């Protein structure tokens, strides 16, 4: 009868109302003298010995089969204990759901209970669905409470209005103002509660996405949460710029997080359109700004951590949007840039030794740094290095220590001045003004060069398919015939140079030529 003993102990703990933070399986026996023998319970961490779990489960299942004879309270505790051990047991979940709609279960406490289950099993679909139902019930009950309180006040308002004619209007208006204030206070409280609750929900989603990457259910639940907010725009922006950026930096291979960013961008767009205060053009500019910032963010990630396919997929989404909005500037050919990098490629194609690759790298970086705002520190160093060399020569000539100290100080001052100048330059050249697909091609080239030079553990054709997609995309969306011929020449160049993706290029060229033939026919 071990099962029964453990069951009764668990019942005790649940009934005592103590807060349980976590549940787990332990492998050491608890000492007989401890308060909760044979369970382990300290600081909210509840543990059951692994040899006790099967008898506990058998006993509770046996009880569950006799549930028609049990009272409501007993069934509630039974299902709680059952789900602790086996959270996938949908019959027990559904039983709890009926009690939730009955009113016998407090939604807030139930949400806390689900936290324990989700921490161990973050990818069980039924738990997430149940959680969403509980949340809806929680908000319903909240609204009803506030409506009940507010209903009392409007009745007073009506009475006051009737008495207005006879009594002093000031006192009446002040009392009606008080009622409004009360209503506002209640609404504010309501909003605060809603926001607090939603914050907790967001944190649970992040936690579960952390435990199990690409957790579809956690991310879809997170998306559903936004429906409960009435004025989400500022929160959306905060989520986009602060919380999700931190999360993505820590979980680069989690494409679901980047997909969620795409959802946020779209949602911000719809919310901005709802606010009809500003003109259409300004709205569109704002939205475009967001997408350009996104492009800068993702470029920063890609240059620092090449080798993650998810970032390239996200880049496709952002680029499609920008290209469709800025057709004129994006699909134009920047002949200067094109000539430059074709020359660079032709020169360096024959020598694929590391030194030349580095040189190629640096030239391309010089071109890209002010546009994509990457390699900021490197180029501050480069430009100030020349000045440093001049100053060290000067300091070597003087022998006085004090003078060298002064020179060092002037060095630092000039460095900071240089950095400021560079930053001003960077701010002046913005991505919007000079963004074209040529620049995008150079960028791809450079990042993939980096990746090949330091090709370490990730042996995937990362970003190679992005280059090919880009060429196809440009070809399909532009109406400039010259573009096609020049694109072909650049494909041939890259075929020569791009030894890792040779086969990919061969196949693509064939496809492009075949499609041409079909079009002619």
């Amino acid at each position: 009868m071990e099962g029964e003993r453990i069951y009764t102990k668990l019942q005790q703990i649940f009934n005592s109302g103590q807060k349980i933070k976590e549940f787990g399986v332990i492998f050491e026996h608890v000492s007989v003298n401890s308060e909760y023998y044979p369970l382990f319970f300290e600081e909210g961490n509840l543990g059951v010995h692994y040899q006790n779990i099967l008898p506990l489960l058998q006993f509770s299942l046996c009880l569950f089969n006799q549930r028609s004879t049990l009272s409501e309270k007993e069934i509630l505790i039974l299902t709680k204990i059952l789900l602790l051990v086996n959270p996938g047991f949908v019959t027990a979940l559904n039983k709890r759901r009926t009690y939730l709609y009955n009113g016998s279960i407090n939604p807030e406490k139930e949400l806390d209970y689900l936290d324990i289950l989700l921490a161990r099993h973050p990818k069980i679909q039924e738990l997430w669905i149940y959680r969403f139902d509980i949340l809806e019930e929680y908000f319903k009950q909240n609204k009803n409470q506030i409506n009940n309180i507010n209903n009392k006040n409007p009745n007073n308002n009506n009475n006051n209005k009737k008495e207005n004619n006879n009594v002093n209007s000031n006192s009446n208006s002040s009392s009606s103002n008080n009622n409004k204030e009360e209503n506002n206070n209640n609404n504010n409280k309501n909003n605060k509660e809603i926001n607090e609750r939603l914050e907790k929900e967001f944190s649970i989603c992040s936690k579960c996405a952390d435990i199990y990457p690409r957790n579809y259910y956690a991310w879809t639940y997170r998306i559903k949460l936004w429906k409960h907010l009435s004025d989400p725009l500022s929160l959306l922006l905060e989520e986009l710029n602060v919380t999700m950026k931190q999360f993505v930096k820590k979980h680069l291979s989690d494409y679901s997080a980047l997909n969620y960013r795409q959802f946020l961008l779209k949602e911000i767009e719809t919310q901005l359109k709802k606010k009809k205060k500003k003109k259409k053009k300004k709205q569109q500019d704002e939205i475009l700004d967001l997408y350009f910032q996104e492009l800068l963010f993702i470029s920063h990630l890609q240059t620092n951590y090449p080798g993650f396919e998810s970032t390239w997929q996200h880049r496709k989404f952002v680029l499609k949007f920008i290209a469709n909005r800025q057709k004129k500037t994006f699909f134009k050919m920047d002949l200067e840039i094109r000539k430059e990098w074709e020359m660079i490629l032709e020169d360096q194609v024959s020598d694929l030794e590391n030194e030349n690759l580095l040189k190629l790298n640096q030239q391309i970086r010089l071109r890209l740094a002010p546009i994509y705002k990457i390699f900021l520190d490197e180029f501050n160093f480069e430009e100030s290095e020349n000045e440093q060399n001049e100053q060290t020569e000067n300091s070597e000539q003087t022998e006085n220590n004090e003078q060298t100290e002064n020179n060092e100080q002037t060095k630092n001052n000039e460095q900071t001045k240089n950095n400021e100048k560079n930053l001003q330059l960077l701010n002046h050249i913005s991505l919007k003004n000079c963004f074209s697909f040529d620049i995008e091609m150079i960028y791809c080239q450079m990042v993939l060069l980096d990746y090949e030079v330091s090709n370490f553990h990730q042996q995937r054709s990362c970003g190679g398919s992005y280059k090919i997609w880009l060429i196809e995309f440009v070809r399909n969306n532009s109406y400039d015939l010259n573009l096609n011929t020049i694109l072909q020449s650049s494909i041939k160049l890259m075929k020569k140079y791009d030894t890792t993706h040779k086969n990919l290029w061969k196949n693509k060229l064939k496809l492009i030529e075949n499609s041409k033939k079909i079009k002619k026919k």
Partner: protein
Amino acid sequence: MKILSLCLYQWRGNNITEPKLLASAFELSSFGFFKRKAVQEWCVFISDTLVKRTNESQRQSVKENNYLCHVHNRFDNLACVAVCDSEYTPRVAFALLNKVMDDFNEIYENKLGKLEEYPFEQIGQLLTKFQDPNQVDKLSKIQRTLDETTIVLQDTIEKVLERGEKLENLVDRSEVLSMQSKQFYKTAKKHNSCCIIC
């Protein structure tokens, strides 16, 4: 993109048969309360075996489930192991290992084997500092042509072990793992789930 553990050992020299753990630091807040102790013991166990199984002046990276363990066995009888997840840039991990050993040498140069204890608090600070590889990576990015070709990559920890050795036997014989972790390993193997950290 995280580092789970960082362990520094003394190995080879002064008649040492087993690697001696000099300092260690752990970052296990993403695991539940009940798993933390077992994970910590496993990190130490893996670090121990890896240090024994890398040759002098050799670097290795061993893949185990979702985690990559980086080992650097240096010429001056020091060895360092970092257990990271598969996203963490390996170049930065090896830079971290170098830094730990360099910093240790600054304090305890030529005193290896003479003292009993080597308090080394900076190992914890380095672990938290390097959790974000981007901030730390600026200098090492410019020196891109590091001797990366000397790093060996292994697919599983079993390839590191000698012929005829089995991981189960090592687990049973190990003194580092408590009864709890050994039981956990056995039951996990039975249920066909990943034995180590998840």
